[in-house]
């Protein structure tokens, strides 16, 4: 077999690269903070003043986002 110039394009599946890995340990502050924000926003849009309430008996938030809660699939009063 003569050695042919190998083009770069076809790569064997074995050497498939992991395009990029973000270290969860290194980015934990940003990942954790973002997750916390997401969960809090989810909670206040969908859950608070329903099954749980951090504002006691107040219903302003619940009534304000009332239609969104129903449409997004959350149980609502």
């Amino acid at each position, binding site marked *: 077999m003569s050695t042919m110039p190998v083009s770069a394009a076809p790569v064997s599946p074995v050497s498939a*690269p992991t*395009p990029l*890995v973000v270290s969860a340990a290194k980015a934990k502050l940003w990942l954790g903070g*973002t997750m916390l924000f997401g*969960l809090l926003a*989810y909670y206040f849009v969908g*859950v608070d003043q329903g099954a749980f309430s951090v504002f006691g008996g107040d219903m302003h938030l619940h009534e304000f986002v009332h*239609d969104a809660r129903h*449409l*997004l699939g959350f149980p609502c009063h």
Partner: protein
Amino acid sequence: MEKRIIARGLLAGALAGLLAFLFARVFAETFIDKAIAYESGRDAAQAALDKAAGLATDSDGPDIFSRTVQANLGIGVGMIGFGAAMGALFSVAYLLCLGRVGRVQPKPLALLVAGAGFAGFYGVPFLKYPANPPSIGHADTIRARGLLYLAMVACSLAFLFAAVWTGRRLAPRFGNWNATLLAALGYAAAIGVVMAVLPAVGELSANVRAFGHHATETPLPLTDAKGTIVYPGFPADVLFSFRLYSLAAQALLWGTLGLAFGPLAERVLRPVMRANTEESGAPGAVPAAV
């Protein structure tokens, strides 16, 4: 790089929420109004029955927000807030998946994560506890219903995570295709068990005491003392349309999130991937842009 990806996730999420809000305002509010009209009519009929029977009628307190505020401003804030929340969680999931789920490129990965978010946060819980319009849902079961719904969401998300993790472990042995099918089968079996174990909303003890055994809390016809129907049950067509538009709004939200985020993320990731490749001295190791 994480910060730029997260910012794009929030942006795409807020945009997705905005589109879902416009969709909801134009198409879904009609059915929310019909459901509220049903509720008001039913409450009036109930009050008339109670009065005829000599019972005390309890009146609702004044509305905190008018329907106009709820149907224009409130739903907008709610949908955009939900979109931003999902955009934030989406970007975290995306960053964790990057490079850990095989050779998926930035744009297809965005669609896959969005699909998982749609199924995990909404689609799968919907199968057990579907979205309900106003007037469906008894006030005294809200705590139980809220907890059951959150349990469904938590389980579907946790099992999705487990399925992806397991699928990756099985891939070297069974190949990508079969490993994916096995993981999907495992997910369906596990979530199926949870769905079978969790109670139907109508079977909550408070509902059984007050109404007998029913699958849901959807209002049945109102009857007077002699059993004559004086007010109909909740209109089936309104319920169907509401649920269809609920599903469509969520599909639109997650679809927009995935489609808008993909190209934004790729523009951030492509140069980093290229730099990494050159550093590691493996030319051609990163496939050309999709």
